[in-house]
């Protein structure tokens, strides 16, 4: 069964460094998402992406964040200058046309 994959599973970085989180959505899916979950808190929407552009973003998704679909398979989230409060589990999701989103296993980002 096709699934969303994410790499790395765990990323440790120093404050102020740039990180890129990678996702490979399910191959025929058209809509792509990033969510995050700070430890002990709820899963929060960051951004949605369709037709090579951002379709919606939350207030969390400020200028430090960017997304890209550099080729036909990858979908990346870049954080330009990480802060301690960016430490969280980051989930990628994708869907075809229905509202049902399929989630990846997540990347745990630790900023020290």
């Amino acid at each position: 069964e096709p699934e969303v994959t994410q790499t790395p599973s765990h990323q440790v970085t120093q404050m102020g460094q740039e990180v890129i989180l990678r996702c490979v959505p399910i191959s025929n899916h058209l809509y792509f998402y990033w969510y995050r979950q700070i430890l002990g808190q709820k899963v929060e929407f960051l951004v949605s992406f369709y037709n090579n552009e951002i379709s919606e973003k939350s207030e969390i998704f400020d200028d430090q964040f960017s997304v890209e679909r550099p080729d036909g398979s990858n979908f990346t989230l870049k954080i330009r200058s990480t802060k301690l409060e960016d430490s969280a589990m980051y989930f990628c999701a994708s869907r075809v046309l229905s509202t049902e989103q399929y989630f990846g296993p997540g990347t745990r980002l630790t900023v020290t």
Partner: protein
Amino acid sequence: AQSVTQPDIHITVSEGASLELRCNYSYGATPYLFWYVQSPGQGLQLLLKYFSGDTLVQGIEGFEAEFKRSQSSFNLRKPSVHWSDAAEYFCAVGVENTDKLIFGTGTRLQVFP
């Protein structure tokens, strides 16, 4: 603003017992409703969804949920819990004309033998 409340942070049940996890939402129109499960180290797996029609929906692995508009609830049930059901369960609402899911804080289910 739309929101989802899962009032139970942690629930413990014995294997074979019945289960009900509560979910309440706040949204003006008919929402799209979902239950996801997250096992340790795993992603969020969709258990079931409600878009319209029959208010009792069946999901995978014997789970079901009932949409009650009058109570703004979408509680998840299972008649007999298995030890492998121990996980974190998230209720989520999809909002019309936006593309995002709004999640509750989750309920951690522990199953005793």
